[in-house]
């Protein structure tokens, strides 16, 4: 990554793989960035409506989910350092814990969404269209942004699932754990995005 160059394709260019992963994360940041742009435009156009609409979201549920995701980031980070110390068993357990926490997050999200849908608050619903323009935009953004984030959670869980099975089968080891580290990076990014989504949707009073 610095100017020290190298002779041949190494079969395990960890630094290269890590650089590639970070670049990929950059693209994810900009993918969500487009939505953050739309969010900030409509929020500045309809500040009052956004406040009113946000009152319809449950701060408690949002906070709980934030804590869950932050904790899952912790378990993921610990899973990696456990493996680096050679403690495969602990790493497997921690990876499993991460997956469980991710699933709990999704379940919460499911209840949250279905609650709103029951109230008739979803895109293009007559109930929602009867409200102000800002509210329509707020809930449009809410569904699209948390929905896309949810898809990322699912992808992250699938990735960690694969890592888990590779760890169990000794294909990811103390010496060769670049894949797990990269999966961890991805999972932390999912957390990172939620860190911003949480105040933007739940905490505007």
């Amino acid at each position: 990554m610095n100017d020290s160059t190298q002779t041949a394709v190494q079969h395990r260019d960890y630094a290269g793989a890590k650089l590639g992963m970070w670049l990929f994360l950059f693209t994810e940041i900009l993918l969500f960035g487009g939505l953050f742009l739309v969010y900030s435009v409509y929020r500045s156009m309809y500040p009052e409506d956004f406040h009113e609409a946000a009152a319809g979201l449950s701060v408690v549920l949002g906070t709980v989910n934030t804590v869950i995701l932050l904790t899952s980031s912790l378990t993921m980070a610990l899973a990696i350092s456990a493996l680096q110390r050679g403690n495969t068993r602990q790493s497997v357990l921690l990876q499993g814990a991460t997956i469980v926490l991710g699933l709990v997050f999704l379940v919460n999200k499911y209840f949250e969404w279905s609650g709103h849908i029951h109230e008739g608050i979803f895109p293009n619903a007559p109930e929602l269209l009867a409200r102000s323009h800002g509210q329509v935009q707020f809930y449009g953004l809410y569904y699209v942004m948390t929905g896309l984030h949810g898809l990322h959670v699912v992808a992250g869980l699938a990735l960690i699932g694969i890592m888990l099975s590779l760890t169990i089968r000794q294909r990811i080891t103390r010496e060769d754990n670049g894949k797990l580290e990269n999966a961890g990076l991805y999972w932390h990014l999912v957390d990172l995005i939620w860190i911003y989504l949480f105040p933007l949707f739940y905490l505007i009073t």
Partner: protein
Amino acid sequence: METNFYNTPGKHKGILAWVLSTDHKRIGLLYLSCMTAFFLTGMTLGLLMRLELIAPGRTLMAASTYNALFTLHGVIMIFLFIIPGIPAALGNFMLPLQIGAQDVSFPRLNLMSWWFYIIGAAVAITSLFTGGGAPDTGWTFYVPYSIRTGTNVSLAVFGVFLMGISSTLTGLNFVTTIHRLRAPGMSWFRMPLFVWSIYATGWVQLLATPVIAITLLMLMAERFFGIGFFDPAKGGDPILFEHLFWIYSHPAVYIMILPAMGAVSEIIPVFARRTIFGYKAIAFSSLGIALFGYLVWGHHMFTSGMSDEARMIFSLLTFLVAVPSGIKVFNWVASLYKGSIRLDTPFLYIMAFIFLFSIGGLTGLVQGALATNVHVHGTYFIVAHFHYVMFGGTVFAFIAALHYWFPKMSGRMYHEGRARIAALALFIGFNTLYFPMFVLGWQGMPRRYYDYLPHYQPLHVVSTVGSWILATGILLMLYNLFRSLRTGEKAGDNPWGGTTLEWKTSSPPPVENFEKIPEVTTGPYHYQ
């Protein structure tokens, strides 16, 4: 017979040896052949459009057919041809060779990118025959029309989305490769300028493409769920879509031109047999273009109803992006000074490139100035501008590079005489086709018009005749290259006397590129 990557058996046989290969050279050729096919399709559409426009009123087709034609022509040319263009085809083939690597950093990701590309292209093409018929929005997919039209926009947009993923992953791969896999001794300032340009392009692909991806997803969400982001009736803002679209699509024009500029910087020293003038200036101007390219998207929206303050700032920034392009042009010309110049076909195309790109770029200044933009926006002036930069610029450089690297890729030489005739026909045909469009545009002829007022006809006729000359040139050029694949003379390892690393291995190269990874001790264009 010498072993090379064509005749070395791999894991798979037949067609699978290609579509499942992770060898960057094979992937490059896969892209090249698909792109040639799409290019011919797009050009055929262009030719049909010109035929329709030879006279006002209905000539060949209905208005809706014409609208679908220019949409497809634009989508094919932009997303299927010129964006993957030089980086994915020639970059894939040459980048590892030029930095002395055995492959790119992520060969399997590279293959996956091609699959994304080809599936995306297939999806986009499927949109022609399914649903409500071929999309008719123009390649810009402006809302609210693209939300309301009954044609199959969603599928086309999804195809473009997949191709966007492909482009992003290619950029990611190349940036990593350039950081990690340079041969020993190849410091940043010993890299060939083509590599620099691919590096700058890679960053643009990485940082701009995700924005179009999300924009297209929003457009699809809009069509399927009626969310209302861009629907004024629901409080949405159509101008915001234009912002999002051009945040990607302006940087995208630099994805198109930067690699072309890299190819030009590669060919000039070889044919002038001297080192390039101002290596660092050219390298840094690539980064400068990539950087400034982000800041100017609003110049496509000067009449959209954007705030006057924004119009002013975007106009100012637009002018600044012209400076690094100018620096390149001046350095190229200076590189000819006291050279020893061989006027072979690649070099002829390069001269045409400099001339045509300058015209295209300088008329870009007319469009960048606020007062004149108001008059020429949405007219054939714009159509002329972008064909000059995209076709006269990128495609001419592409053709030059294709001739230049033909011996390396195929092991044979093309027929020089035929190639020169084709170059001449292309140059004449090109100017006959597009120059009248500047005049038409200044006279007010709007673009995307199926029908027009009779007083515009004479110039349209000239333009259509030009398209026939151009078509002749293109077909001759392609015929020559294809024929030379079989009948051309054996080329040898280094027919042009190039100094960059790809000429230090055999033609065509062996599977892992080099018998022994070369050690680099000098700059890339070290003559004498």
